[in-house]
C-alpha cells in the first residue's frame, strides 16, 4: 500500500507499516484523551509510590524495632518508641543538626552575597562578558565528590594554599606547613568554602536571570525622573528582585542542608566529629555502626523536621512566583 502511493520522502513508510492495522488502532486508542492523560500519570506516580512511599512505610516499621544489622532480621523485636528516645537523647544528633544549620546558614549567606555581587557586575553587556559567565558557571557542573577531593588536595600541609599564605605566616613567625584539616574550626570552614566554591555559581545564575528579567521601562522611567544610580538600585531594582532573592534562598538552603559529599571526602567527619553533618551522622550510624533501627528512627525524625522546612519553602516559592506573575515580568 505504501508503494502504490509514492510515499513522500519516506514519511508514508513510517506512517503505514505494511499490514499494521492493529498498530493504527493502538495508536488511535492511545491518542484518546482519557487514556493519554492517565498513562504517564500512573507510571510516574507508580514509580514514586513503589520507590519512595513503600520504603518509607517500611522504615517507620523498622524504626519501631530494635535491630542491629549484624544480626539477622528475624531476631529483631518490637521496641516501640525506644529508638526515637535514643536518637533524641543522643547529643551527637543535636550537634550534627546544629552544625548542619550552621554550615548551611553561613554558606548560603556567602553564596547569596557573592552571587548577587557577581551578577550585578555582569548583567550589562561588555566585552568578555560571555567568557566570564561561562567560567563562573563551571563549578556547578563539577562532580561534588571531585570538589571535595580537590580541596582536600589544596589543604594538605604541603599544598598550594599554604604556599600562597607562606609569606604571611612566616611573618608572624609560624610554620607555613599548616595542616588545615586537623583543626576543627578550619576544617569546618574548609567544608563551607568548598560549598561556596561550588554553589555560588548557582546563585549567580539565578540572579543573572533575575537581573536580565528586570523590566527596562521601569528603570528608564526612574532615570528620567532624575534618580541617581544608587537610588535606582535601592528603590527600584532591589524591591523588584525580592522574589528572585527569596527563590534563590529557598533553593540553595534546601540543598545546603544536605551537605554530605564533602564531609566524607574532605574530612570524614573529622577532626573528631567537628565536621559531621546530619547526613553524615545518619550515614555513619547505619553503614558504619550498623544500627539500623536507630538509623531508621533518625531518618524519620529528620524527615519530619525537613517536611516543615520544605512546606515553608514551597509556600514561599509559590508566593514569590505568583508575585512575579502579577508583575508580568
Amino acid at each position, binding site marked *: 500500500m505504501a508503494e502504490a502511493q*509514492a510515499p*513522500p520522502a519516506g514519511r*508514508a513508510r513510517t506512517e503505514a507499516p505494511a499490514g499494521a492495522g492493529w498498530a493504527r488502532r493502538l495508536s488511535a486508542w492511545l491518542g484518546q484523551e482519557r487514556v493519554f492523560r492517565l498513562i504517564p500519570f500512573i507510571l510516574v506516580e507508580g514509580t514514586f509510590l513503589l520507590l519512595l512511599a513503600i520504603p518509607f512505610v517500611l522504615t517507620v516499621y523498622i524504626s519501631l524495632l530494635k535491630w542491629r544489622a549484624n544480626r539477622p532480621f528475624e531476631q529483631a523485636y518490637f521496641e516501640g518508641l525506644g529508638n526515637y528516645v535514643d536518637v533524641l537523647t543522643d547529643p551527637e544528633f543535636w550537634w550534627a543538626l546544629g552544625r548542619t544549620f550552621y554550615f548551611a546558614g553561613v554558606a548560603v549567606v556567602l553564596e547569596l552575597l557573592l552571587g548577587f555581587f557577581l551578577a550585578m557586575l555582569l548583567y550589562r553587556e561588555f566585552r568578555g562578558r560571555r567568557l566570564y559567565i561561562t567560567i563562573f558557571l563551571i563549578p556547578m557542573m563539577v562532580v561534588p565528590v571531585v570538589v571535595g577531593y580537590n580541596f582536600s588536595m589544596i589543604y594538605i600541609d604541603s599544598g598550594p594554599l599554604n604556599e600562597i599564605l607562606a609569606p604571611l605566616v612566616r611573618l608572624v613567625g609560624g610554620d607555613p606547613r599548616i595542616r588545615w584539616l586537623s583543626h576543627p574550626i578550619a576544617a569546618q570552614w574548609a567544608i563551607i568554602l568548598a560549598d561556596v566554591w561550588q554553589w555560588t555559581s548557582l546563585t549567580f545564575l539565578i540572579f543573572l536571570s533575575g537581573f536580565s528579567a528586570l523590566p527596562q521601562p521601569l528603570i528608564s522611567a526612574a532615570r528620567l525622573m532624575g534618580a541617581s544610580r544608587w537610588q535606582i538600585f535601592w528603590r527600584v531594582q532591589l524591591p523588584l528582585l525580592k522574589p528572585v532573592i527569596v527563590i534563590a534562598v529557598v533553593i540553595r538552603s534546601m540543598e545546603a542542608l544536605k551537605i554530605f559529599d564533602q564531609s566524607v571526602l574532605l574530612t570524614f567527619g573529622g577532626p573528631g566529629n567537628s565536621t559531621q553533618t546530619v547526613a553524615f551522622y545518619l550515614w555513619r550510624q547505619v553503614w558504619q555502626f550498623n544500627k539500623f533501627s536507630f538509623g531508621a528512627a533518625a531518618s524519620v525524625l529528620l524527615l519530619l523536621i525537613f517536611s516543615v522546612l520544605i512546606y515553608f519553602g514551597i509556600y514561599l516559592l509559590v508566593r514569590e512566583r505568583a508575585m512575579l506573575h502579577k508583575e508580568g515580568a
Partner: protein
Amino acid sequence: MAQIVLKDLVKKFGWITAVAGVNLRIHDGEFLIMVGPSGCGKTTTLNMISGLETPTSGEVVIGDTVVNDVDPGERGLGMVFQDLALFPHMTVFENIAFGLRVKRVAEEETRRRVRQVADVMRIGPLLEKRPSQCSGGEAQRVALARTIITNPAVFLMDEPLSSLDAKLRVDMRTELKHLHERLQATFVYVTHDQAEAMTMADRIVVMRGGHIQQVGEPLEIYRRPANQFVAGFFGTPTMNFLRGAVAKEGGRPLFRAQSLAQPLPAGSPLTGGGGEVVLGVRAEHVLVGEGSKRGQVTLTEPLGDETLVFFDFGGEAPLVAKVNPEMHLAPGDRIAFEFEESGFHLFDAATGERLN
C-alpha cells in the same frame, strides 16, 4: 451541503457557563460573523462547531449529520486561528501540505495542489521560507492557503485579523470577501470588532454573556437593534442614550428626560406605572443648527469627511452629533439642536429590550 445547525448548545466550564443555549441556523455559503465583547461565548461556540470543545449539552449538525462525536478532522472544516498557528519548524510548503500529507495524498498531487493554492493566494515565492520569515500579511495568506487546500465546505475563523496592524487589516478584509465569493463556501467568523462585522458579514450574530442577542443582516442590526446593548455596540460614535419616561401629553406621546422634552411619533409605547425608558438617538440623527433645544459645545473632533461635536444640554451626559465639516464650531459655542424623528429607538430601561 454545508449548512450548520446549532441546537440548544450549552457549554459549561465548572461553575462558569460560557455558552447558555445557542440556537442558530447557518446557511450554506453565507458569510456569518459572530460578534460580541470578550467572554461573550463566541469563540467557545466556534470551538464547539469545530469539535475542539465538546458541548455540555445540545447538538451540532453539519449538513444532515449530528457531529457531536465526530473528530474535528473528520468534519470537513477548515480553521484559521487568531495566532495563525503556523508550524514554525516547517517551511511554508510543508505547512500547507500538512493536511494532505496526513491524509496520505500522493506526493505529486500534493505538490501540484500546494503550488496551485500558493498561486491563488500569491505566496508562490514564499514556499521554501519559514513562517518567521514572512510578513504579517504573508503569514495570514499562508494560513488561509493551508486551510483552503483541503477544500473544506466550511471555513471557521477565530479573530484572524486581530494580530495585524490597521492598514493591513482593512486590506485583508477585502481579500477575505473576495475569497468568500470565489470559493462559495460557508464562512463562520468570530470577532470583537463591530466594524469588521458590519463590512464583511452577510449576517451577523451578536452575542453577550453566552446568549445570542440578535441575528440579522448588518443594516438591519444597525437600524433596528433588538436591545440597548446591540444598539450601543454597533456604530461609531456610540449611540446617544437618554433615560426618561414617556407619557401622553396633549394627545401625543412625550418623552421627558431631565430638562428635555421630545415628542414621539404616534403609536410609541408609553411607560406605565413608573417604568423608565431609554431613548436612543444615533449621532447622525442629531441635527445641529436649528431646533428648539439648546446646548453648549464641549469638544469637536474633525474626521475629515464629517465632524463629531460633543455638547452638553443640561442632562447627565454629553450628546454627540455628526455635522457637516463646513460647520465651524468650537468648545463653548452655544448651539441649537433637534432630533430626527426617524432615528428614535426606545428601550426598556430595566431589561434593555426594544420597545418600538
